[in-house]
Structures are given as C-alpha cells and as structure tokens.
C-alpha cells in the first residue's frame, strides 16, 4: 500500500492533470459536483455525496451526437464522435462505482453505445472508501462494501493521509505516473478505518433493508399492489430523483435547429415526466402513479430480471435526501417488501 500526505494532495492533482484530464468533486456556488480540476478550484473529496452522481462523466446530461446538413435535396450526416482524451475520475464512492457497473450493463450491451463506451474506455477510476456514512446511506442492503470499493485504484482518507492501492493495469499505470509523490505504508491505518466504518454501517437505519420480495416471479403481484396509489400521491412528477440517481439512465434524443444545420443530441430524460411515453396516438402511462411505479419497478424488478438479479439501485441515498416531498426507494421497499422491513 502507498500513501500521500493530505496536504500534498494538490500536487497529486496537478501531476495527474499534466497528462490526463481530472474530474473530481469540486465546490461551486455552494454545491459539490464532479468538475474538471484546475489550479485554485475548491476540491472537496471529503463530501460524502456530490449532488449529481459521477454518471455524467460517461453519460453527460446533454451530448451532441451528430449533425445533419442539407444542400438542395441532399442530406449529409456528420459524425460528431471524437477520440476521448484519457481522464481520471477521482473520489468515486463504493455506491457510485457499483452504479457504473449497472450503467455498463445497459450501454455496453450489444449493440454497444459508442458514445458511452469511448468515455468509459478513456477513464481511470480512483475510488474513495467511506469513513463517515450518514443515515440516508443503505449500500449494504445491496451487498456493497463502502469501506473497500473496487475501481482501478482504491483510496482511503483519514485526517493525515490518503492511502492508495492500485487494483488494475490502468491503476498501475496511473500509480507509475504519480509514483514520485507516493510513499510506502498505511496497511494498519486502512485496516483500522475499515473496521471502524463497518461498525457504523451496521448501525445505519436502512442497512438491513430486506429485498427478498423483489424478484422477477413477484413482478405482477408487486405491479398490482394497491399501495402504489398512496405511495405516489405526493409525487410532483419532477425529475429530481432520476437526475441525482447514479443508475437512472433513461434518455431522450432530440433535434435542434442551428444556423449550420440540425444537431441531434441526446439528453437525460425521466420516466417521471408526463410526456416520457407520449405518442401521437396515445400514452401508455397517463397517471403519475403509473410513472412512479415504473421507476421503482424498473430498479427493483425489471432491471434485475434482465440482469441476473442485479438491482438498479446502489443505496446511495440521494433520492432520500433530495426528493422535495420525501418520497424515495426506501419507503417503497418498506411498504412492499414484506414483514421483514417493519
């Protein structure tokens, strides 16, 4: 294991930034989100939860896909994809890292989404273990160990040092790049931190959510539950939960007319929006209850049914903290998940 003093972290960022791009939690106008690093930026890797998850590094909220040019009757398609510069995504928590696996199963499944894939391939992910999880966290319920996330490099942070462990070839390459700044040591400190954090995690109120009920064979029973109506009644139909969620991946494709032709872009979309399924001659989900149900059924039943039981929720708790009316997946699990959750 390697380590670097906390007060030298800026040197580490600068060193990485010499050859690669660096995306890291940065505070801007009071809120911490992943941004491109630069000298003088207010880095805040201690922040447990960035408002937006790091998913927009691979799946940006808006991205231009192609351009169309018309000359007379002739149409021309201009491919806007470009080679992605290598970059490091730094400070990813265990839940958000697991969420990338959830996204991979959608975007890298055949046919591969080249927009996502090119960014994913160009990225080295440095994860950061949690030491101060909060009451809205429930990654343990999804079998995630917040004290030892995976990733190309895993790091741990305490009052004095950032501890560093490369896990993959990409991780080794990055380690070599910053080797001069790292020194040996940290095994004892990391082991102690892991142990202490595990104790906190066990005590978190949602750590033992029981998900047994959420299986493909219960799909229709869960779908038909009369409880959806009550659970969704306060839902505003906004997209906050979907946009702060690290695993929500629904998108829209739209055209935008510019002076130099038509740009086709894709952007995040939300199953909570009333026009999400609207067609010229009908809409399959006309009520907010149906849309609310879709979101949670997708995460807890539909997605696992298509992906060997992997849930499309990682227990990051962003929806717990951010829903304007305090509706969230935990309340759904407790309401529908059977006696074990009482």
């Amino acid at each position, binding site marked *: 294991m390697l380590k670097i003093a906390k007060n030298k972290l800026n040197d580490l960022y600068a060193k990485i930034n010499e050859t690669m791009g660096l995306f890291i939690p940065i505070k801007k106008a009071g809120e911490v989100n992943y941004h491109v690093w630069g000298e003088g930026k207010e880095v805040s890797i201690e922040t447990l939860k960035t408002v937006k998850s790091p998913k927009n590094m691979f799946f940006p909220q808006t991205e231009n*896909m*192609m351009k*169309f040019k*018309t000359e007379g*009757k*002739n*149409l*021309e*398609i201009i*491919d806007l*994809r470009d080679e992605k510069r290598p970059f490091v995504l730094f400070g990813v928590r265990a839940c958000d890292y697991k969420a990338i696996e959830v996204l991979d199963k*959608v*975007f890298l*499944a055949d*046919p*591969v*989404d*080249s*927009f996502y*894939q*090119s960014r994913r391939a160009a990225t080295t992910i440095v994860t950061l273990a949690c030491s101060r999880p909060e009451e809205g966290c429930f990654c343990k319920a999804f079998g995630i160990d917040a004290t030892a996330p995976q990733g190309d490099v895993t790091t741990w942070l305490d009052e004095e040092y950032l501890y560093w462990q490369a896990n993959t070839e990409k991780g080794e390459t990055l380690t070599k790049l910053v080797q001069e700044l790292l020194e040996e040591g940290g095994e004892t400190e990391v082991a102690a931190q892991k142990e202490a954090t595990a104790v906190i995690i066990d005590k978190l109120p949602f750590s033992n959510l029981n998900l047994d009920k959420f299986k*493909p064979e219960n*799909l*229709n029973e869960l*779908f*038909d539950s009369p409880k959806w109506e009550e659970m969704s009644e306060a839902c505003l139909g906004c997209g906050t939960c979907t946009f702060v969620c690290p695993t929500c*991946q*629904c*998108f*829209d*494709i*739209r*055209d935008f*007319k510019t002076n130099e*032709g*038509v740009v*086709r872009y*894709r952007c995040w*979309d939300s*199953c909570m929006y009333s026009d*999400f*399924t*609207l*067609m*010229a*001659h009908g*809409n*399959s*989900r006309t009520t907010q209850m*149906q849309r609310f149900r*879709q979101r949670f*059924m*997708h995460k807890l*039943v*539909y*997605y696992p*049914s*298509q992906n060997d039981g992997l849930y499309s929720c990682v227990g990051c708790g962003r929806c717990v903290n951010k829903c304007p009316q305090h509706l969230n997946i935990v309340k759904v699990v407790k309401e529908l998940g059977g006696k074990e959750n009482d």
Partner: protein
Amino acid sequence: MIEETLIPKIGVVTDIRRDTPDVKTFRVVGTDGKKLFQHMPGQCAMVSIPGVGECMFSITSSPTNEEYMEFSIKKCGCVTEVIHALEVGAQITVRGPYGKNFPVEEDFKGKDLLFIAGGIGLAPLRSVINYVRHYRQNYGKVVIVYGARSKDDLVDIDEIQNEWVNEPNMEVYLTIDRPQEGWDGHVGFVPAYVKELGLDPNMTAVLCGPPIMIKFTLAGLLELGFDKSRVYTTLELRMKCGVGKCGRCNVGDKFVCKDGPVFRMTELDELPDEY
C-alpha cells in the same frame, strides 16, 4: 470509431403511393440505389426527418424484395405529417432493423396461417404475408381477414385485389365498418366477422390493429377454440433508441423495441397490463 446504431443511414424516397386518405406508402433505397439493410418480417426501422423527429415504423415490404424497402405510414402526429408532405427524391434517414421478427422460419413453418388486421395494422402483416407467398411451399393454407373503417381506408387494396386473392390456397376476407356505396363486400367489425367465418382453430393466428380490435378479436378466437400460444400480435409504444437503452417502451421487464414488437399472446399474459 466503432459502428454506432444511433447514427442512421441516408435513405432516398423513390416512390410514394397514396393508400388511403391518411396512409401513404414510401419506397426507400440508399443513396447508392441499393436496399439499405436486410430485415425479417415484423422488424421495424427508425425513420427520421432531421429537425423534426425520429419515429419507429414497421417495415411493410417483404425481406424477399431485394431492391428496396417500403413503409406504410399513417398521418397522425408531427413527424408523420412532415413525412406525408415529402416528394419523390427526398432524402430521409433510416436506421435498423430493430426488434424480434415473426417466427416465420420456426413456428410458422408448415402451419396453416390466419392473419387478422384492422386499418393500418395491415402494415406489419404485409411483410410477413408476402414473405409467406414467396416461400409458398413452406406454409399451409393462408387466411387473411382485413377490415377498415371504410373501403377507402383499406391499405394496399390494389395488391390485395390483384395479387393476394389469386394466390393458390389463400383466402382473403375483407370487411368495412359501415355500409358504403360501391362496396358489395362484407360489412361489420373485424371481431364479429372472425366469429362469423367459423375459422379452423388449429391455425396459427397473427393479429394487428387498434388495441380495442385486438382485445375483442382475441376473445372471439379463444371462443372458437384457438390456443393462445399460437396467437401472435405486435405492440407499439413510444421509442427513442430502438435498442432497449432509452428506457421508455417497456412493458414490465420487456422492451417492445428489443424483445418485441412481436409477442405471443401467452407472453403478453405474463406481463403487466400497461400497453
């Protein structure tokens, strides 16, 4: 750069045929004059007018046609309105093929086939009917029941009356909802007509049309003794990507674009009622 399914090909409209007051059939080839891509009956393609939008349409021509593809499109929204205003020579974009096709090479082979369509619902069936006609020796008897609001709303009536009715071992029954001058054929709704015809329940049936027609026709077929596992239909929901990623066209854990649009009735029975 690897191939990207979301980036379409350019298609040239080489022929436009008006089928009904609100349905036109568009013939499309690539800029090189050749067919854009191969498909199987029942599969769909994303057609777009840049700047207006992209929509999923079923490919109505048969895969056995090596020269071009055809789309029969009903004018019912902002994209189809612009498509209807196109002229021959116009360039559009096309990507696909998407979705699962009818099991023409598996379950349908050697079987007697019953096709039931209502209105624009004939579009996806035309592809499979002409495929079956092309490989006629591989299939048994074919019965087609097709209905529309009026005689003017019957899609592809020329092909039906000039070719299909003359095909050996193929019966075509047409019906319109209300009596109309110049129509001496059957009058009445499709579900009722199907029951009247007293069809052989051992046939494999394919239904396509408005949801209400499907619902009542299916009930009629079950009454006649048809087995749900041998009844197929196609679904249509809002789609954006066509490859099961954009997240909107699911019914339960199935995506219509990827796992459909062709579904066996027994498969649909297992899914929640949200389509």
